[in-house]
């Protein structure tokens, strides 16, 4: 990957990748692995970008896919449950943001199922229902219902 490509095409969108990777990892080491893998996949797949969506949307999609694949591999190694099920254990994040509320919110997000994590991240990033549906691969009606349900669950976790 040329440093040019990284600086101009990835770095401006690093925040997206970081936010997503943090929701799927519980250690700094894993986070860095996921981040690097996402960057690598973006570079590898750059020729597949057909400009049918915004570059940022494409990065969201790719980041989520990479994180889900990584998590699935990890789960398979541990012989855990298939994806989209609630995690067996609550992940404890050793890394802290300066904002305590944000730490708690991230902690709560990590307790969601893998797909729900992706949906709420996209929602919080102010993606439209249509974009979320496109990225996740479902229909818009489903997204609305799902977001309401996830928000309720997050509120419940945060209030506890």
């Amino acid at each position, binding site marked *: 990957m040329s440093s040019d490509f990284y600086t101009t095409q990835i770095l401006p969108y690093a*925040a997206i990748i*970081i936010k997503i990777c943090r929701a799927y990892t519980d250690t700094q080491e894993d986070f860095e*692995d996921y981040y690097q893998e996402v960057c690598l996949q973006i570079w590898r797949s750059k020729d597949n970008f057909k400009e049918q969506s915004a570059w940022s949307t494409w990065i969201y999609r790719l980041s989520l896919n990479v994180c889900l694949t990584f998590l699935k591999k990890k789960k398979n190694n541990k012989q855990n449950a298939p994806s989209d099920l609630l995690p067996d254990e609550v992940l404890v994040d050793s890394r802290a943001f*300066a904002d305590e509320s*944000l730490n708690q919110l991230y902690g709560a997000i990590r307790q969601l199922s893998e797909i729900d994590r992706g949906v709420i991240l996209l929602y919080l990033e102010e993606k439209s229902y249509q974009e979320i549906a496109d990225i996740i691969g479902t229909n818009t009606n489903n997204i609305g219902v799902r977001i309401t349900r996830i928000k309720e669950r997050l509120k419940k976790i*945060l209030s506890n």
Partner: protein
Amino acid sequence: MEKSIETIWKEGFIKNDALVAPKLNDLYNQKSIDIVEKFKRMYKLNRIGVAAFAFIIIPLSYVTKMIYMGIPMSLLFIAVSFIAHKYSKQLDHIDKNTSSYKYLSSFDTWVKDMVSLNSKLSTFMYPYIFIAMALGFWFIEIEGEILGNMLINGIITEFPTTYLVNGFPILLLIPFFLAIGVLAFFGGKIGKWDINLVYGRILTRLENILSDMEELRK
């Protein structure tokens, strides 16, 4: 009043500077080690399999009354296992304390040497296996008579004018040596195909990683 999750999200990221991208370095380090370790495990298992077969084939050929096939086959597999073991020792000398690219390049060179050696050996190995099998079948006894002799008698009866070389009908020798020639000619290719069958996936991965790394270095 309690903040909404949307507000927490927005304010949280405005306030702090936690969104610092990690440095991209040593990108392929873990992958390089993984791929080599996986190959080593497979190669070791394969060697153990070949060595085990070398010992099993003798009693097996004794039971099936094909000891003339069993002994040369066993000797061959012992030799193959020994060469592979000696060759695998070189893998331990690949320097792990170097960059991922150099590490994988050295491993790739080792693999290429191994494939080349295997191809050269296969040129002799497959004809050898064929001869061993022919010997095994030749000396099988059926109702007190050796199968090879029955075959010669059959050919002579059917083609009484056939030319004999040291008592063997030319009609038998031609296809026999033709088969040896074909196996010797295609032995290298069969050897490569054989390696591809066992290690193909891992070698393709190695190739892809190396080509990625080469591009990364540009």
